[in-house]
């Protein structure tokens, strides 16, 4: 009942008969038409599934070092992408590394989105001094260059995956909160919010049933495009040794390990970097595809 | 009849989109003489604006003029290269647009925006261009031109901005003035002033004017000739008296009836003609108006009616022209 009400409200001018389900379906159709986005989605699913089932799909053990194969180039024996300076299979380590790299790119963005929804909705919906207090505090975080702030926070805590997640979450909150607040303000100004208020709906009901569903799309689009960037930032923290600790590795720390043997064995550095670029790029394409699918104003030629 | 200054022949402007080819203007022909005003009337999406932009060759991609001839004196504008067309725009043909709030560059002083056209087209120095701009500002009724020359657009009201834009459009004394719904965005009280000003400058320059509008009141006040457009095509064309006295196309009649109904002040129906304008990428096989036409017969759904001249330049595209002849026609000696 509630969702049906929302659906008709949202599509008020175009009209009757559309419900939330068909809207989602239409958005999916528009998204599926974007070949780059669709391809990216498939690619990411494959990468994620391989990481999830790493023990079953990896050709080797990620920590098994074969001395004779140190720095072996791609195609040596059954080491498809070669071995690192310890003689470990790079492909296997990439698959296992995906577990950390994907999590440290995805988890903080999601966490930051949840925190930002609370902060941004509160600030945008209630306005006044609450708004001022929240936004002025976030302005302080805006004063720091994003990557440097993440490095400083991660650097001050004990290195590790959890540190990485905390650091990236903190630097993202001001950015997403600002978007949430802006969308909230524009949605709150709509006549149907006034109508809901006049109809006696409580604050919580208005926010959860009318404001949130109507402002979530731009926030999701924005957050998705951030995941790509955060994969890069997180890999940077690992590269600096502030994230995951050896012998475990993610893609960023694998690049760092390869640095020492850059001349002798460039593939150790090149492959993990390529994967970071590909995954980050895929998130960007998906973000673009989502934006076009969810935003009817963005008409492409 | 004087030699026409503008002759449009078989103009087709299409937009290629993912949804298919939208035939915004599909085979438009008309002539216009100096000193005369042609009003193009129709609902939004009927192709009136695209027609006027096509004459200026200002249709943006994905729109393209695919066919036709636009003769200004002896020059086919569609055969000119972009640089040659730039010499015509703003010099021989001036244009006033719909939304004065968006039509002035917010970053430049209004005087400079008018003078720019003069400096492009005429071999004068800056001082002379400034002098002429001040004269133009006075001519279009901007008080204290000297003081206002250096002001920015945000310091002007909508009506004043439209005056500035008219000044800019007539800066080089064009032979043809195109005005695309010049008063739609303005207050009712300002509308009459702007129309009066347009008429005045047209008379001074003896230029031909094309006035795009959906307001039949404006037509009655301004037009010498009227062209009614529907779904990218001309459905009726005549001088203004004929259009109001003896409309022959069912669509024109519908438009006029809605006007009369409104004047009755009895709020009967606000929607003038039942139904919606057709999707221009999926036009019906026959007459585009047939689905909404109260008088449609079987033929109407089968093929598009040819434009026929029924008397002294009165052109109508309708299969039922003969049947719908008004009674007054027969009584005229």
């Amino acid at each position, binding site marked *: 009942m509630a969702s049906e009400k929302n659906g008709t409200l949202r599509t008020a001018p175009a009209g009757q008969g559309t419900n939330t389900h068909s809207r989602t379906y239409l958005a999916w159709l528009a998204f599926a038409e974007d070949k780059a986005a669709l391809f990216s989605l498939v690619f990411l699913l494959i990468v994620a599934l391989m990481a999830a089932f790493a023990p079953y799909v990896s050709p080797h053990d990620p920590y098994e070092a074969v001395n004779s194969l140190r720095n072996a180039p791609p195609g040596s024996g059954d080491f498809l992408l070669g071995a690192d300076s310890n003689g470990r299979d790079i492909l296997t380590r990439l698959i296992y590394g995906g577990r950390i790299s994907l999590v440290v790119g995805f988890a903080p963005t999601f966490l930051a989105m949840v925190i930002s929804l609370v902060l941004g909705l509160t600030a945008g919906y209630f306005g006044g001094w609450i708004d001022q207090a929240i936004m002025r505090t976030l302005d302080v975080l805006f004063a720091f260059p994003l990557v440097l702030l993440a490095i400083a926070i991660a650097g001050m805590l004990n290195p590790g995956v959890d540190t990485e997640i905390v650091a990236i979450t903190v630097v993202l909150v001001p950015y997403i909160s600002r978007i949430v607040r802006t969308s909230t303000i524009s949605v709150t100004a709509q006549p149907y919010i006034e109508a809901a208020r006049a109809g006696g709906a409580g604050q919580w009901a208005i926010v959860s049933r009318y404001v949130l569903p109507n402002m979530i799309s731009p926030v999701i689009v924005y957050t998705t495009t951030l995941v790509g960037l955060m994969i890069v930032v997180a890999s940077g923290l690992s590269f600096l040794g502030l994230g995951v600790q050896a012998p475990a590795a993610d893609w960023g720390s694998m690049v760092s390990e390869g640095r020492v043997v850059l001349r002798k064995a460039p593939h150790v550095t090149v492959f993990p970097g390529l994967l970071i670029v590909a995954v980050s790029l895929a998130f960007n394409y998906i973000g673009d595809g989502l934006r076009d699918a969810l935003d009817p104003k963005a008409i492409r030629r | 009849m004087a030699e026409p200054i503008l002759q449009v022949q078989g103009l087709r402007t299409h937009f290629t989109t993912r949804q298919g080819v939208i035939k915004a203007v599909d085979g438009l022909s008309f002539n216009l003489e100096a000193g005369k005003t042609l009003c193009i009337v129709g609902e939004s999406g009927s192709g009136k604006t695209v027609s006027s932009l096509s004459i200026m060759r200002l249709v943006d991609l994905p729109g393209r003029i695919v066919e036709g001839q636009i003769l200004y004196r002896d020059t086919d504008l569609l055969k000119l290269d972009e640089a040659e067309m730039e010499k015509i725009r703003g010099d021989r043909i001036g244009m006033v647009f719909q939304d004065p709030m968006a039509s002035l560059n917010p*970053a430049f002083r209004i005087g400079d925006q008018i003078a720019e056209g003069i400096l492009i087209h005429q071999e004068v120095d800056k001082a002379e261009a400034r002098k002429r701009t001040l004269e133009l500002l006075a001519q279009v009724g901007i008080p204290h031109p000297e003081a206002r020359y250096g002001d920015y657009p945000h310091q002007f009201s909508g009506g004043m901005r439209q005056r500035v834009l008219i000044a800019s459009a007539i800066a080089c004394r064009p032979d043809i003035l195109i005005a695309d719904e010049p008063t739609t965005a303005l207050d009712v009280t300002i509308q009459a002033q702007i129309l009066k000003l347009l008429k005045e400058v047209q008379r001074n320059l003896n230029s031909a004017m094309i006035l795009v509008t959906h307001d039949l009141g404006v037509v009655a006040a301004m037009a010498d000739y009227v062209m009614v457009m529907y779904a990218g095509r001309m459905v009726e064309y005549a001088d203004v008296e004929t259009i109001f006295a003896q409309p022959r196309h069912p669509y024109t009649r519908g438009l006029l009836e809605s006007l009369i109904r409104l004047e009755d002040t009895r709020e009967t129906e606000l929607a003038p003609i039942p139904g919606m304008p057709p999707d221009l990428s999926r036009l019906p096989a026959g007459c585009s108006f047939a689905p909404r036409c109260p008088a449609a017969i079987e033929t109407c759904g089968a093929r598009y009616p040819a434009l026929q001249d029924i008397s002294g330049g009165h052109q109508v595209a309708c299969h039922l022209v003969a049947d719908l002849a008004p009674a007054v026609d027969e009584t005229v000696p």
Partner: protein
Amino acid sequence: MGRQIITRLAAVIPILFGVSIFIFMLMHLAPGDVTDALLGPMATGDAKEKLRKAMGLDRPLVFQYLTWMGNILQGDFGVSVHTKRAVSEVVLPRFGNTVILALASLLLALSVGFFVGMYAAAKSYSTFDRVSMSLTLMLGSTPPYWLALLLVLMFSLKLRWFPATGMTSILGDGGLMDIARHLVLPAIATAAAPAAIITRMVRSTMLEVLSQGYIRVARAKGVSQRAILWKHALRNALPPIATISGLQLGFLLGGALFTEVIFAWPGLGNQLYYSIVARDVVVVQAAVLVIALAFVLVNLAVDILNAFLDPRVRKV
């Protein structure tokens, strides 16, 4: 106009105050103790306690903050826990080196981003546009440290065109040419991602402006395509371009940390990294503070510049 500037300046003061509190808190929330770093794991609790007292760490936090802030306002950033040198002596010259790298990179990113973006907007949906948009998307997704390593691999190790490291002292005897040679690769690596973002920004802003009504009016006046682009459109696209470019400086400073580490460029980012590793809190505090200050001031400058460009603000 003057009031606009004063309002903006005034808005910066509470932010800088907040920044200093945030940095101070961050360093105190950090697990472990400075004394561990100083005295090593073998130190007795007694010795640590003595040192804490000597450093004023037993005082209330508010007092510690005020002392720290007061000293900084007098130009005293404290003494490095690690090297025992005055932090200002370390941080300020290092900051100068970072400015050199940042300026070179910003110049590169701005000029590439601006011209490619302008051209892509002028020829929108052309092959050039499509290719440059794909390339910039890819470049924007490339980790700066990885790109730096690829550049080293290609141009230092294989082709031997440029040195990979060795920029020890800017004021050494190599002169300007030496600096330039050492600057090329780090500047490219640092500039790549910001250049990509600026390109896309310039393009989308220009397309947005080009779709405005006044552009059509200008064309109707007979203004040439070139003048439309470079005069009418650019003048209105400039403020948002300047704003984003200012924000890119933050991105660029982040990237610079990686390139400084990889190319051993003696900048503040490099210093920050090694101080983090050494847990030299005093230096980290100072370095982060200086960077944040620079970032805030640059964006303030862009803000004021935009106010000058906007007739609505200027004329009031």
